[in-house]
Each structure stands twice: as C-alpha cells, then as structure tokens.
C-alpha cells in the first residue's frame, strides 16, 4: 500500500491540491478529500482496452495495433483539406504543445472545449482586459463574493470551502460569517440557497441587469425603471450598496453569462462593472473554468500561436476568429472534412447538427473512455489518463500553474507518445 499526500485533482478548474491518494498494487483504492466529481474520475471507470478501427460508422469496431491506428490517423489528417483538432481540456499542457505542433503540420484548426464553455469570456477579455487575482487573494481577503450564472455546489463543489465562501484566511478569519454571498441566477440553485442575497434574473436578461447596476453605481438610479430583467429596482439599488461596501469583492461567473443571449457581451459588461467598482473599492472577476486544465490550453496556445483557441493554420500562419474558426462554426458550415477529438467529447457536448456532420466525416478519437464521440469515430486510440497516470503541468482557473504527479503507472501509451508518433508519420507521408 502506498500513500500520496497533497495530490492534485484532475477534474475541475479548482485543481484541489490537498488530496490523499491510497494505492495498492497499481490500483487506486481511495481518494481522500476529493469531492464526488474528483473521486469519480480518480477511482476510474471502464476503459477502452485497445485501439479500434472501422470503415462503416454503423459497423462494429475491430481491434487493431497502435501502429495501425496511428498510421490511419496520420493518413486521415494528411488527406484532409480542413481537419479539426478538438478537445484538449482534460489533458496536460505537455499534450497541448504537441497537439498545436500537429495542427500546424497538417494545416488544421485547433480548438478546445472552451469553445462551448468560456470561449466568449476570452472574447470579452480581448475587449476589456481582466481585473483578476489568484484564488488565494479571494480566500484571504474577500468579504463580498458574487456568483453570477454559476452554480459551484454542483459544478465546483470544493470552491466555496477552499477559496470563496467558507474558507478562513488571513484577513477573513471569520470564514462564512465574515463574507456576504450574492447569487444571480435564473434558477434558485443550491448555491442560491446558501447565499445572503439571491437576484433572480429573467432568462437572457443578464446584460440588462448588469447595465442597470452600472447606471446606479454611476449615480444615475433615476434613469433605471422599476424593474430590470425581472429584478426590482429596489433590490438593484441595495445590491450596489452592498457591492460598494466591500473591502475586497470577487465576482465569479459561469455559463449563465457565456451561453445566454448576449454571450461575450454579458461578460464584457460585467468586466466594465468591475472596472467601475474599482473606483470605489477593490474588485476582481474570474471565470469558473470547467475542466481542470482548460485554462492551461489557453496559456499554451497563446504562447505558441498568439491566440488562446480556435486557431486556424490553413494559411501557414496562425489565424483566429471565433465565429468562423471555432469548432461548431466549422461543423455547422460542414467545412471540416476530418476531425481528431482528444481529451474532450464533442459527441456528447456539441449540438445535434454538429454531431450530424461529425458522423459524415472521418473521425479519430483519442480518449481513455467510450463516449458519444466513439459512436461517430472511425479510429479510436485509448491513452493513459493525464494527472492520474501521467505527470505534467496544468493551470488552475486563476492561472496558477501546478505540477501533477503520477498516482499510478499507465497501462496505455500517453497522449504525448501517441501525438509524437502521429506527427512523425504525418511527416513521413508528406515526404518531409
């Protein structure tokens, strides 16, 4: 029996670093301190055993060697005029680096799961910047915390305990009692139930409500109507008073802003509100990132290509224009003529129309698990699980980089090895 202390969790953007992992043989038998999400991933599920291939997507898969599957993947990518390389968020930065190289090599488009998550937040940050901080600052200082369109009880279960609500810090030694918690959401979620103040926003009205808050903050409450986006003016005025009274305020936002009407404009407006609040007191804002290393892909892609995601290499130089080069735009326009899905599940998380197009083009899946993407794949390459069987770097939701250690030895090749071999084979086929 072996015990690994201070292990990092490879599930969500909280990347909790206080887990105790107990192993026996080459098996994890306990993941102490992990939440339900982390424990489910670390304890593991049924894996794909060996690489598989099929020509007819309605036919059965046939087990093949890694060499055959890698060779077929390289052929698909080389023969494609517009290959999409999508996923990446459940993999380490070392994998991202190799993926970007492969995308460049095949003149493809590389996009990550932020496309259906915080992609719009990136667009808003281009417009306005991001007044933010580490989660440590929030833990130690925040006395007003807002969750807007975000439900950490379900999506980031330990966020509140470790960083934002119940956590006790240097200047926040009272923990929950010393913090005012505000939740703005369409539904009265479990997070809303533990808040001091719940703002029920009419679906699709976030932009309006944020605009009203900005108007009140700048001294123009007189122009605000009696209710905005379903929220009474009285409650908005009270909320502005609470926000202004903070010594250190933190706003966390989720898909409620990025996926609702207005998309990136909602976040753009929220960031403006934060800038304006900083004229009165200290405020920071942070997206609640989903996958543990979705932030890492944005970092690696930015330093390798100059852009955070949705990068098109068709011109030989990186080109970026979400709305044109993001995964769902490409699939909706039926432009992608092959796809490699890795460490993400487009089959489960893309709209039906996109999956319909994936079902028509050659698809390679690199993933430890059988999922809806497998159902539309031609080639399936199972790999080791990053952060559990593979060591490397990931970025927490606040941009802090952390080093993941191995918990157990891999029984499959790593994503890095597989990508190296695909790139090598692509170069051979191209005759470089």
């Amino acid at each position: 029996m072996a015990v690994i202390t201070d292990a990092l969790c490879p599930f969500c953007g909280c990347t909790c670093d206080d887990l105790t992992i107990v192993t026996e043989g080459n098996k994890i038998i306990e993941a102490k301190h992990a939440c339900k999400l982390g424990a489910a991933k670390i304890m593991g599920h049924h894996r794909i055993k060996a690489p598989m291939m099929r020509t007819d997507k309605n036919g059965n898969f046939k087990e093949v060697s890694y060499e055959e599957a890698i060779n077929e993947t390289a052929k698909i990518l080389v023969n494609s005029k517009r290959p999409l390389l999508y996923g990446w968020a459940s993999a380490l930065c070392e994998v991202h680096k190799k993926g970007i190289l492969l995308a460049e090599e095949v003149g493809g488009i590389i996009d990550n799961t932020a496309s259906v998550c915080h992609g719009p937040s990136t667009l808003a940050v281009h417009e306005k910047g991001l007044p933010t901080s580490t989660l440590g600052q929030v833990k130690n200082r925040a006395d007003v915390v807002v969750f807007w369109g975000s439900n950490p009880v379900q999506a980031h279960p330990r966020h509140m305990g470790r960083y934002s609500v119940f956590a006790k810090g240097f200047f926040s030694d009272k923990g929950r009692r010393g913090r005012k918690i505000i939740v703005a959401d369409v539904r009265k979620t479990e997070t809303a139930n533990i808040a001091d103040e719940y703002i029920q926003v009419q679906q699709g009205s976030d932009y309006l409500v944020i605009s009203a808050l900005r108007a009140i903050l700048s001294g123009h409450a007189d122009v605000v109507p009696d209710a905005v986006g379903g929220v009474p003016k009285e409650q908005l005025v009270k909320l502005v008073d609470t926000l202004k009274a903070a010594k250190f305020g933190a706003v966390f936002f989720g898909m409620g802003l990025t996926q609702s009407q207005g998309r990136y404009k909602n976040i753009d407006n929220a960031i403006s509100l934060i800038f304006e609040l900083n004229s009165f007191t200290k405020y920071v804002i942070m997206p609640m990132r989903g996958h543990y290393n979705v932030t890492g892909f944005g970092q690696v892609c930015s330093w390798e290509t100059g852009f955070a995601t949705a990068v098109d290499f068709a011109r030989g130089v990186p080109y970026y224009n979400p709305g044109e080069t993001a995964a769902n735009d490409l699939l909706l326009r039926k432009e992608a003529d092959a796809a490699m899905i890795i460490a993400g599940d487009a089959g489960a998380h893309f709209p039906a129309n996109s999956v319909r197009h994936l079902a028509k083009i050659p698809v390679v899946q690199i993933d430890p698990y059988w999922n809806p993407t497998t159902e539309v794949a031609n080639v399936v390459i199972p790999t080791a699980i990053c952060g559990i069987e593979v060591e490397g770097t990931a970025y927490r939701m606040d941009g802090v980089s952390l080093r993941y250690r191995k918990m157990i030895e891999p029984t499959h090749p790593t994503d890095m090895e597989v990508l190296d071999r695909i790139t090598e084979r692509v170069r051979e086929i191209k005759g470089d």
Partner: protein
Amino acid sequence: MTLKVTLITGRTINQGANLENKTSSDYLEATAYCELNSKDAGFLGKPGSNVKVKSRHGEVIVKLKENNGNPDGIAFIPMGPWANAVIDPDTRGCGMPGFKGIPVEVEATNDRILLMKELIARYK
C-alpha cells in the same frame, strides 16, 4: 397538453460524476431528464413519467422531474447528448451555440427514452 417553456441546459454534480461513464445507465439517469417546477410539471404528468421536448432544432424524450428552484416557464435539462438534441446550434458569430434560452414545447408521451448509442445513431 403542450407546455411552451424556455429551456436552459447546464452542469449537475451527477452529470459530472459520470463524465467518464457515458455508456452507463447512471449517466442516462443523470442527464436524460427535464426539470420543471411542480406547477408546470403538474400540467404534464407525474414526476418520473416521460415527456417529449421539442424545439425548432429537434426533439428528444426524457424523464419529467420536479425542481421548485425553477421559475414558471423555465425548463432545465443537464448538459449532454439528450439536451443537445434540442439546443440552438447557431453560435451568433462567437463560436458558442445556444445552450440556454431555447424556446421549447414539452408534452407527455408514452415513447421511451433512447439509450446514448441509439440517440447518437440517429445522426448517422
């Protein structure tokens, strides 16, 4: 009767805990349902019965659930292949499909819920 509501999709803890377990019945249980408050659900049937959710973009059969955190006229389906059968694929020029705020019609049905494999097979 047919109930006209606005659909939101999103993360739940059980959906997340089965993210690597999508061929299982646990994943289906965790994602193939539609939540409405008890008043709205009452128009359609008993919790646990099946409902058909239909939008301009597709239709899907899921289980009816009650959650009184939902305001009147708001339905919630956890993110995943069942929800994505009816969401709006238009990215409004910024890469992001319409996962929230989709006008849908919900009605009681005797049809069964498709398994993940059957659901994806419809797209082939």
